[in-house]
């Protein structure tokens, strides 16, 4: 452990890998000092573990119905979160539902921020008419209420998880483009960009190698902070019956199903609601912690 620590904190790294690992380690040490961020990280890791080990952790099949056991209250032996109107164990359904939530989150991460980053940096770097055209397109997307646009898309494409993800991605890239463009504008006129341009570097090299790394932290922070929004939009689509289809255990869908018994059997809707709340909170805390570590402005000299 001490040798590893010494290797990581070596002031004279011997390779690219070592210097990068050392920087990451320092960031981690800084991140670790923030207890709320650590809680956020814990929740996010728990979500990932839950979804991986759902088959081992879940006592019941999330889809198999058992009508004699319907609407059992929480803390019933064998069903500590209770059962829903088809007698399915809510705890098992939430565990399996985390897989769907995670799938959606991952797919959105891989699409919207990437598109936003590219559009934002290109617009900010070139300026002029390129900027005007790209940012007006961004404005048009921003002008639509997000859920309405997603609904329209799903209505055209048909319900289902992939289409829900697509709809969320299409509606959520503009904020990333805005963030990336703003960051690019502050970086564009810096001396290190001028120096590299003076060396004959192409625009592609400058955007990819110099501008994007400076925009990445803000975009990553934005992603984690917005993750809660993604989960909620996905749940919203599920709730409206336009996302994942029954009998799959998607959290929004579960709330929608529980709505009918909200006053008598409150737990049916409350348990998945709590799950959404906890996971959204976790991502938000994580994002706040990452901001302190990654933000180039707070890192300073």
């Amino acid at each position, binding site marked *: 452990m001490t040798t590893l620590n010494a290797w990581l904190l070596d002031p*004279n790294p011997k390779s*690219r890998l070592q*210097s990068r690992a050392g920087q990451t380690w320092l960031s981690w040490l800084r991140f670790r000092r923030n207890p709320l961020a650590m809680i956020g990280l814990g929740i996010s890791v728990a979500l990932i573990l839950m979804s991986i080990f759902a088959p081992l952790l879940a006592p019941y099949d999330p889809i198999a119905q058992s009508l004699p056991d319907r609407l059992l209250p929480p803390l019933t032996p064998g069903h500590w979160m209770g059962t829903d109107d088809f007698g399915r164990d809510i705890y098992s359904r939430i565990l399996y539902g985390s897989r769907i939530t995670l799938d959606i989150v991952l797919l959105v991460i891989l699409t919207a921020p990437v598109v936003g980053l590219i559009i934002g940096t290109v617009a900010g770097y070139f300026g002029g008419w390129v900027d005007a055209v790209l940012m007006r397109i961004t404005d048009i997307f921003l002008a639509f209420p997000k859920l309405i646009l997603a609904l329209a898309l799903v209505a055209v494409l048909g319900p289902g998880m992939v289409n829900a993800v697509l709809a969320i991605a299409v509606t959520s890239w503009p904020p990333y483009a805005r963030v990336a463009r703003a960051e690019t504008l502050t970086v564009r006129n810096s001396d290190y960009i*001028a120096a590299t341009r003076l060396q004959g570097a192409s625009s592609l090299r400058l955007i990819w190698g110099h501008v994007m790394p400076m925009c990445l932290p803000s975009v990553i922070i934005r992603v984690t902070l917005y993750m809660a929004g993604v989960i909620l939009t996905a749940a919203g689509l599920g709730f409206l019956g336009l996302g994942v289809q029954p009998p799959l255990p998607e959290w929004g869908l579960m709330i929608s199903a529980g709505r009918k018994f909200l006053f008598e059997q409150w737990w049916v809707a409350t348990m998945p609601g709590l799950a959404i709340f906890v996971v959204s909170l976790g991502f938000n805390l994580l994002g706040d912690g990452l901001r302190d570590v990654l933000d180039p402005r707070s890192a300073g000299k």
Partner: protein
Amino acid sequence: MALIEIENLSVTFTTAGRKVRAVQDVSFKVEAQQSFGLVGESGSGKSTILRAICGMAPITGGQIRIDGKPLPTPRGRAFAAQVQMVFQDPYASLHPRHTVDRVLSEPLAIHGQGGSDAKIEQALIDVGLPPAFRFRYPHQLSGGQRQRVAIARALMLQPQILLLDEPTSALDASVQAETLNLLSRLRAERGLTFVMVSHDLAVIDHMCDRVLVMQNGQAVEELSREALASAAMTTPYARALFAASADRMLEG
């Protein structure tokens, strides 16, 4: 024929509909292997001339010729291999997320030159940095060390001409001395031509053979080093600037 010829150069910026004439009708020539100084206070247009040479300022009149040939727009790779620049603030001129290794290998990659490992180590040694610094990030270096990295980067492509924009004004006095010594040594070893901008007459006097005093975008007076040291200036502004730098005289 002079290596750098600047003839009636004018640079005009347009900001918010207002025209700012940053440089007006400035002409000077720099012979090969000479060191030429531009001195003046803030807003005198001295840095703008360097930026105009590099194609980073809008030239609205006059001509810049290097080796007798007008410069192409955009400047292109051949220009990059001939002319390089060192910036004022070493904290701003190195990418905060690139290691020294990446900073120095980039010019080689752009110009498709190989053998970067050996060249980078040699470049570090040439500017007086230990090769062990190769994989450090800029924030792990002091201001003087960063400026050495910036100088090494400018020399990676073996240029003929080095443009120096206040290369030591952000550095401590002792580090300034080391950096100026390094620049003098590199110039002697490689036969470089310097165009150096500074607000500090003593630095200019130490480094340059000839100096152009500028004020409000206009050339005021061109002086040889001897004329500067013996206070033989003829214009009132050059004299005032000299008087304000009195504590930088030899005995003072």
